[in-house]
């Protein structure tokens, strides 16, 4: 076969694959928009569901998901970033570094329902938190830690050692070097991990069912220790109703809101990332 022909066959394959991905996303979003956009209005976002979830809105579920994301942000992001910094910048023992890396990698591959079981055993039962927001927040935090650690680690090791040397040679301490150079230069990569984590926290269903999300409950959670509702589980609830015909629009509306939440966050992350990229480039 001649080389030009071969080339065009392979390029053709690449092109088809590329467009297939775009098409899949376009179909997904188009589908949700088509069926869900009609459901979304002010009332939908600010009211509780009524009449067996077939009417009303999704306010308690939206709020629950936002609470979960906030908890994950507060709990796992500082811990994840600090432990990655420790791992890369402070841990000198090569063997320990290797052990850490393997552990983190494997944790990232553990199915989420297993984290749910961990949360159920540890937070809900052993530590007696009950099925609650805090138990779910902690469980999701553990679930996303490997993501944050891995992406922060990638960002840190991409910084050339010569920049660390430059700062150290000026009489800076290690902490000053980390604080004024390493962390700012790594920020784009760190933010990527943060956003991925928040998206995970917003979308995970299996673990939160085990540790505190209610299928349906009246009212809003009034403390960290009360049960709550969240969008992904609500979508599941609506989709498994016997009379989906009645809940259909709510269903697609909820999915659309969840999608917009995640896409919105990704956009913010991209903007922040570009800002940092412009500020520090090497």
């Amino acid at each position, binding site marked *: 076969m001649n080389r030009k022909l071969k080339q065009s066959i392979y390029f053709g394959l690449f092109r088809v694959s590329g467009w297939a991905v775009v098409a899949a996303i376009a179909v997904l979003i188009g589908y949700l928009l088509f069926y869900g956009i009609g459901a979304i209005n002010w009332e939908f976002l600010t009211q509780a569901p009524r009449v067996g979830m077939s009417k009303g809105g999704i306010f308690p579920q939206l709020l629950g998901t936002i609470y979960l994301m906030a908890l994950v942000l507060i709990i796992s992001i500082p811990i994840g970033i600090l432990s990655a910094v420790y791992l890369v910048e402070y841990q000198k023992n090569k063997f320990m570094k290797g052990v850490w890396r393997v552990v983190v990698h494997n944790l990232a591959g553990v199915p989420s329902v297993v984290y749910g079981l961990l949360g159920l055993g540890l937070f809900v039962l052993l530590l007696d938190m009950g099925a609650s927001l805090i138990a779910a927040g902690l469980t999701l935090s553990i679930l996303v830690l490997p993501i944050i650690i891995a992406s922060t680690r990638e960002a840190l090791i991409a910084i050339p050692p010569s920049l660390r040397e*430059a700062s*150290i*040679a000026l*009489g800076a301490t290690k902490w000053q070097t980390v604080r004024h150079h390493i962390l700012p230069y790594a920020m784009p990569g760190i933010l990527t991990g943060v956003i991925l984590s928040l998206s995970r926290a917003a979308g995970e269903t299996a673990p939160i069912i085990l540790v505190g999300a209610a299928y349906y409950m009246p009212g809003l959670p009034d403390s960290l220790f009360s049960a709550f509702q969240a969008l992904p589980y609500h979508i599941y609830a609506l989709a498994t109703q016997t009379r989906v015909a009645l809940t259909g629009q709510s269903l697609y509306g909820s999915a659309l809101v969840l999608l917009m939440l995640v896409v919105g966050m990704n956009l913010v992350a991209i903007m922040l990332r570009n800002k940092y990229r412009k500020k520090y480039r090497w």
Partner: protein
Amino acid sequence: MVIHVTDITVRQLNVHFDKAHALKDVSMRIEEKKITAIIGPSGCGKSTFIRCINRMNDIIPSAKVTGDVLVDGTNIYDAKVDVTDVRKKIGMVFQKPNPFPKSIFENIAYAPRIHGTKRKEDLSLIVERSLRRAALWDEVKDRMNKSAYDLSGGQQQRLCIARTLAIEPEIILFDEPCSALDPIATAKIEDLLIDLKKDYTVVIVTHNMQQAARVADRTAFFYLGELIEYGSTRDLFEKPEKDLTEQYITGRMG
């Protein structure tokens, strides 16, 4: 008036990287306000040697340093000595220019700021003085807030020198500062080195024997981790005492 003696006395210095013995029993005295060149074939321990003088080897986990390095009469490896004070007194410029990915101003203001200078006016003065001393001021004074990465390689290296001058060191170590530069940029740095020795003790590692001959008062020849010969630059190049030295400077070494 306090008279600072900033000569460096190295005694029985040994460096090991895991099993490799990179520096073997090196003893020498580096004179104050002179330029001392370190020459020798690749891998002979030149960088390892000067990185002992500001304790940069401390950041390599596998490096074990034994022996004494006396600066101003104190052993910088003494347990009581704060390593950041050592590095503040002994600046270092590296082989590849390594400016921070920040503005020209921030590159130089960083060190004085972490060492306690807070006022913007004071910082501006230090920045200007350091840039002038590094013969870079005229080229950059109109773009202090531009990224240091927009400078040419030679300018970046002079920026790194200015950055080091801003910590007001007494000794400056250069590890092959010109190896990434073209001849014109190299000549500028060499002029600068000669100017700097009025006020600073300078140690420079170089691969380039002509460079050592041009700028250095004294030259040390290292081979396989050992100090083979050390003396005035002229003596070392014109009548070397050791066969190894002669082989190296005449280019007859494998």
